[in-house]
């Protein structure tokens, strides 16, 4: 399974999913209206590295993180 965590103000409990790529995750989230608003502005990390392609493959034991806009300091 692959863990998906929702960071900062997303304020949701992590979930575990069985997918092969980020495209699968996009498809899985498409009916979640509340999450859709966030997805427009969220970056995505796989195993703590930011990624920019939906073709990014994931495997059992990987971690996907959704990161909303940031503002430190």
């Amino acid at each position, binding site marked *: 399974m692959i863990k998906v965590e929702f*960071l*900062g*103000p997303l304020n949701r409990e992590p979930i575990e999913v069985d997918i092969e790529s*980020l495209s699968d*995750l*996009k498809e899985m*989230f498409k009916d979640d209206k509340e999450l*859709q608003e966030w*997805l*427009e*502005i*969220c*970056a*995505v*990390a796989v195993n*703590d*590295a*930011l*990624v*920019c*392609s*939906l073709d990014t493959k994931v495997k059992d034991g990987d971690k996907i*993180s*959704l*990161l*909303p*806009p*940031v*503002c*430190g*300091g």
Partner: protein
Amino acid sequence: MSLELHDGPLHVEEITNRWFNEMRDKNYGAYIPFIGIVRDEDGISGLSFDIYEPILNSWFDTWQKKAQKEGAYLLMAHSKGDVPNHTSSYISAVVSPQRKVALKFINDFVEDFKASAPIWKYDLVDGRRVYAKSRSTALKGAGLLK
């Protein structure tokens, strides 16, 4: 690695004095600190922060390597949780042999910190945390799953 995270407001005197004393005999000619202070504005009682430490650590490590190439060294402290008005949530400093390198570096570093460090800010309003969405910056690649 000189990155430290503290629960609540930073103890500015302790941190900056400790850093200065750690750096003073390393033969750096310039020590440039930046201290952020929480302002009383828009009726807030303070700010609050969430931090994602794994990516913060790798982001800081990348900057530390850039600093080393210039003969400089970075130090940074940030708060987690609630930080009242008129206290500090963020301190960074750069030491380097020359002043000009340190002044440029502190500016570039803090700019990228604002745009890239995985830290989320909330206003404290009537005891509630309100995400500072309008003041936040989307990270590289945002919108991938929309």
